[in-house]
């Protein structure tokens, strides 16, 4: 029966070409616009470290004084850590792995002539950073805990930076001048660009370029390298980055299972209670939190308001297109009341008529899906030319490709429901009389 209905649908659609074209165009435009924005949202809220993200957690403490008032403009200071808290969490070693970090942009002065000094983004971190996030090394390795303690003058370069500076990915043992300090290269990492750059703080352009260098946090502090993270303080800290009233560090921990997560959560509360007993924290210890990577990203709200607005616009547009198609299908199906009545008189059940028209709607949806795909590709192409940091991500993957057709067929079948229902309710006797 399916093949027969398909044949009927194609015949009916080719009979009134203009109307069919209108419907396909409407659904194509609606689907194209929606899929463009859904794809953008999809790539922006993707998993930055598939396979690893379910073990990564971001702790949060509340060292703020009771009377602190959050300004509507500034970031929440609790999103980051103070130096004493971060170091205490690291020293406690309650997680499988733990690392503290902060971002920085440093001036690199290339040794060879012909290359002007340039700024490059990188990260100051502690030793577990590489193992915890699964950064792979092409050459050499990361630094040790002893290097952290000894403020070793070492650096890990990304392959891109290594090639830019030395023309090779084997730069281990060479020296690079960062700011006013000479750092020895001890490792070269494979280019690593989690999207979004989840471990950076929200002030960073998290969809932009990846970190090009990594160096020990203690070394960066020793050399007074500037950080580009948000720095929030709630009383005078006099430029001391180790001050207990200045938050600027990010801390990530790796926890293997639910037991470890519960234990770590308890540890955070115990730590807060201890700090409160010492008089440093003023707020209840239960303010301490532990977020999984994906729920942390949800909280950070990385999708810009403009993108969300555009998504709603596109979906609203799809709705208008669908109402349009409902009206057109209604006209089309009811026009064939005579044909329906003959079929009904010959023994077709209501459900057969319903199925026949349902298939016709689905065919329109499929054709609209193809057009929508073309329009979505055009839309994504235009998104890629936007001046935003996420622009380069706007590519369709297989799931979005399939999603386009699913959405198109779903939308058209949904739009066909009401007209098909009306058509199968036509009273045959009345229609046959007028034939």
């Amino acid at each position, binding site marked *: 029966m399916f093949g027969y209905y398909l044949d009927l649908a194609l015949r009916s659609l080719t009979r009134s070409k203009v109307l069919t074209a209108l419907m396909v165009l*409407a659904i194509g435009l609606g689907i194209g616009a929606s899929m463009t924005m859904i794809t953008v949202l999809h790539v922006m809220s993707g998993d930055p470290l598939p396979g690893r993200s379910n073990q990564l957690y971001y702790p949060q403490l509340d060292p703020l004084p009771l009377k602190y008032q959050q300004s509507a403009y500034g970031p929440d200071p609790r999103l980051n850590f103070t130096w004493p808290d971060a170091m205490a969490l690291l020293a406690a070693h309650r997680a499988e792995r733990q690392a503290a970090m902060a971002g920085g942009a440093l001036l690199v002065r290339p040794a060879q002539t012909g290359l002007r000094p340039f700024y490059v983004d990188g990260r100051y971190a502690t030793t577990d950073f590489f193992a915890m996030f699964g950064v792979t090394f092409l050459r050499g390795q990361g630094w040790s805990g002893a290097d952290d303690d000894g403020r070793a003058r070492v650096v890990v370069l990304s392959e891109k930076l290594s090639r830019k500076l030395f023309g090779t990915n084997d730069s281990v043992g060479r020296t690079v001048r960062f700011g006013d300090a000479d750092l020895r290269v001890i490792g070269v990492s494979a280019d690593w660009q989690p999207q979004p750059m989840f471990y950076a703080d929200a002030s960073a352009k998290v969809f932009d370029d990846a970190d090009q260098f990594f160096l020990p946090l203690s070394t960066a502090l020793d050399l007074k390298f500037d950080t580009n993270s948000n720095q929030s303080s709630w009383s005078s800290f006099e430029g001391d980055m180790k001050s207990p009233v200045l938050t600027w560090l990010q801390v990530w921990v790796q926890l293997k299972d639910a037991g470890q997560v519960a234990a770590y959560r308890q540890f955070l509360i115990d730590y807060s209670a201890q700090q409160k007993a010492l008089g440093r924290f003023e707020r209840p210890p239960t303010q301490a939190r532990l977020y999984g990577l994906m729920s942390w990203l949800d909280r950070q709200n990385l999708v810009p308001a403009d993108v969300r607005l555009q998504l709603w616009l596109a979906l609203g547009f799809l709705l208008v297109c669908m109402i349009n198609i409902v009206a057109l299908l209604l006209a089309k199906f009811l026009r064939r009341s005579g044909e329906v009545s003959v079929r009904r008189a010959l023994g077709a059940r209501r459900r057969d008529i319903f199925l026949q028209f349902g298939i016709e709607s689905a065919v329109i949806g499929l054709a609209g899906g193809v057009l929508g795909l073309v329009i979505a590709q055009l839309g994504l192409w235009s998104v890629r030319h936007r001046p935003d940091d996420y622009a380069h991500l706007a590519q369709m993957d297989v799931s979005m490709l399939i999603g386009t057709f699913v959405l198109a067929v779903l939308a058209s079948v949904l739009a066909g429901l009401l007209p098909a229902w009306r058509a199968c309710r036509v009273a045959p006797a009345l229609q046959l009389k007028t034939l």
Partner: protein
Amino acid sequence: MQIRPILAALRRHRLATMLVALEIALACAVLCNACFLIANRVALLHVVSGVDETALATVQLTGYEDSHAVDLNARVLAGLRSIPGMQSVSVLNSIPFGARRGTAGITLDMAGQHFGGVVEFYVGGPGSMQALGLHVTSGRAPQVDDFRTFEGLMPTDASVQITRSLAEHLWPGTDPLGKDFWLDKWHYRVVGVIDHLVRPDPSNWQGDSKDWSIFVPALPGKYLAGSYLLRADPKDISRVLRDARTTIAKIAPDAVFDEEGSKTLSDLRTDSFRQDRAMVGMLVGVIIALLLVTALGIVGLVSFWVAQRRKQIGIRRAIGATRADILNYFQTENFLIVTFGIVLGMLLAFALNLLLMKHYELPRLPLYYLPIGALILWGLGQLAVLGPALRAAAVPPVVATRSV
């Protein structure tokens, strides 16, 4: 006009009529709000900067050592001033549409209890205020002894000029001259009011707060260096900036010339609104597509109705109706449906606006958008119905006499 028979006919096509009206209503809601969004963005694109953008450019230097800052300032100021066509070179920490280095929250009392707002401090050396072309509307411009040396972010005690909109925000209805405000423990006194001075990042601020800026006079030194304001004739400014680049390479090889930050102010302005222009383009695209789809829907449906009513039209023609009567019939019918849709659409437009106000910090939709949206949709409806209606008018009376 015979509205009664039209209504009677529409009652027989209740569902289809409702659908078209609903479509018009949604189109009306989206149209009004999208137009409003566009108007907001366009207003942002035309924000008054208060400075002579076309005559200005900036040079941003980094990478030099702090201890060389004073020496660098001297070399750069002298070197750049020798460029032919250069009218003035001065030091200014933040640049309109460019570098942002002085965003901070101020309070209206020393104890820090009464929060005034987050403002932009433009810390500028001698000549920078004239170079910007700021208009002092009351009080006075900075005098020679207002420019002092300082350490840290900015002078800790100074006589400053603030914009009119900031004055109005801090001390509504009163004379701001002689008033004091604080940044933590640092104290500032208002001695002049300037017309406009836009923030470096107006896109991020709503309404009048785009213009909440303060000019703090200071002497260039270790903490005020590396950010220069160049003024030249608008015809020469691009060439002057190019010359500045080559000059810097010669006189300050120890510094890094920031390519992204060193541009004419006109270019910086264009750059800083690129996203807003992209958004306007997207909104215009949505509106056009929406109107197109709505019009096509009307064309499709009315064509079907015309085909369905061929016989009735023939009968009406046979008993004396003119072509114009038939045309009028379909046009009036369309007008009624669209009107119904618009009434519904105005309610929807307000609901949508409330939603946008809640989530996107959008102001309230001005009422005059509604009649404009209604006019557009009426026009669109009439245009869309014209084709099918003309075909209906062309139905010959003889159709009536043919049996089916």
